[in-house]
């Protein structure tokens, strides 16, 4: 566990050693602010509800950008040989990488609290759904990061990792939009595997364990697959 945290800490610090992380975070906040304060947006929704939908879209490129290099860069440069010949389990490496990315995501989400806060100065707002909304974002974001770690374990090219993770997250996000075109029997399943279905429920202000369970399963599955993929180097 100590080693997991050591790895997470190194990744988290590493983000701030290059301009890439700053650019991603700033772009996220700027785009969010732009849409959030645009007259169109304000006119349509006087609440912060829409902010969460917007953030869930913005996470689609942001989460894969945070995870793309986690394992692929180690493979490309060869540092993975040093890392994996230290007395650390492969599972600790995967978990450490994931937690490193999760720390950055948490910082990003914390920064966005500025928006609801500024709205609250204009009028009263209901903080309950905002809290569940952040929980939904954290869960969906974590699921996207776990998928990103998985994609990063498949390749030594971080651009490929970015696109593969992005496509997978996009597919899980968009799939519920196609429900009207899907036969009745399959629709229930498709709805259940989509991010959006569970996200919507949480943002509405209801914490349903089934929705939480869904996101935790996606995280667990993706990380387990990443672990397998890392381990497979030994037998290839």
């Amino acid at each position: 566990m100590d080693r997991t945290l050591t790895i997470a800490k190194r990744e988290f610090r590493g983000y701030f050693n290059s301009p890439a992380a700053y650019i991603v975070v700033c772009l996220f906040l700027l785009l969010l602010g732009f849409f959030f304060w645009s007259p169109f947006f304000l006119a349509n929704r006087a609440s912060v509800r829409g902010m969460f939908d917007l953030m869930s879209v913005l996470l689609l490129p942001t989460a894969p950008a945070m995870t793309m290099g986690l394992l692929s860069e180690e493979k490309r440069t060869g540092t993975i040989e040093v890392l994996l010949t230290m007395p650390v389990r492969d599972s600790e490496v995967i978990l450490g990488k994931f937690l490193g990315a999760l720390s950055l995501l948490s910082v990003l989400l914390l920064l966005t609290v500025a928006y609801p806060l500024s709205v609250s100065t204009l009028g009263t707002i209901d903080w309950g759904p905002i809290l569940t909304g952040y929980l939904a974002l954290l869960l969906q974001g974590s699921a996207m990061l776990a998928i990103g770690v998985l994609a990063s374990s498949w390749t030594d090219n971080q651009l490929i990792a970015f696109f593969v993770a992005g496509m997978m997250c996009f597919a899980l996000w968009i799939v519920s939009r196609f429900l009207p075109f899907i036969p009745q029997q399959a629709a229930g399943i498709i709805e259940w595997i989509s991010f959006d279905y569970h996200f919507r429920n949480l943002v509405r202000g209801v914490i349903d364990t089934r929705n939480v369970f869904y996101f935790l399963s996606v995280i667990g599955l993706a990380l387990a697959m990443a672990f397998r993929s890392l381990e497979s180097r030994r037998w290839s």
Partner: protein
Amino acid sequence: MAATTIAGRCLAPAEGRTPKRAGAQRESLDMSEVMIEALDLSKRYDDSLALDKVSMEVRRGEVLGFLGPNGAGKSTTMKILTCFTAPTEGTAKVNGCDIFDDSLGVRKSIGYLPESTALYHDMLVLEYLQFVAEMRGLNGAEQRKQVKKVVEETGLEGVFAKGIQTLSKGYKQRVGLAQALLHEPPILILDEPMSGLDPNQAVEIRDLIKEIGRERTVILSTHNLAEVQVACDRVLIISKGRIVADDTPAGLSERAGKRRYLVTVQKSNGLSETSGCAALEKISGVQRVRSLAAEAEDELSFELLPTTDEDLRAPVFKAAVDNGYTLLDLHREGQNLEQVFRDLTTTESPDPEAHDAAAE
């Protein structure tokens, strides 16, 4: 089996095999303790065989050199011993821990410098060493002490506050070594630690390794003969995934100092590689005969190593005539080290037995 026969034939006299620089502190160590024991390691990548039944023993305090051309299987062996990858067949014990059953134990006992000397370029030298120390379970005062120690040992005092990215290749190599030394491992595995350095840097790193190797078991790989001569107590020559020689640097030089005779005869009925070898071996003063790849289809070439400096050309000529061979060429030459190396690593299979095994 094949590996042991080859190794057995190449053994130098017993006294030549014990490390010569037995300093005061080395005598206190149990030098007979086997630190690394590999048994029939094979590694298959898709359809190519990178390692073919490699067996070896490395004792405490030994500095062992893996010598071989590119693609021989040196790095593969090291990756197996460090548990980065698993052998397809065979197993190994490192410091008493099995690479399959106790990979964490193996990894605790070793310091490893991979071929690429890959480091996290976005970190400062000090940050990096702290990270590795933490991963090795060193914290607080102990961590500070060990980091300070390796920084001094590897001469990084001047650069430890610098970004790794800005360092020269030589200094990066030192950081790689420092990283491998932090937890004071009993075993060091260094993959081509001196390649890619300019001659001055290479000498510095080499001296550093010799210094480090005083108290530790070291395996280092190289494709440079001179390096192995200076830095190692024992040399394993690896070629095409097999160990083809196991000798001391002195033993290798001794072979190199010797003359050898090259004999080429016309192929004829009743003359094969084996019968030719047998006939030539009977000549008194011949220590060993080996068949070489001939230049033409209808020719056979042999290499004869003499036991003494006596001129064997006349007896060889006579033996050829007595056996009814048509002698096409006979000459004597001094071997240099490069030649020994080239012969060992380029002949199809230096051991008839191994050849048979491969054919099965």
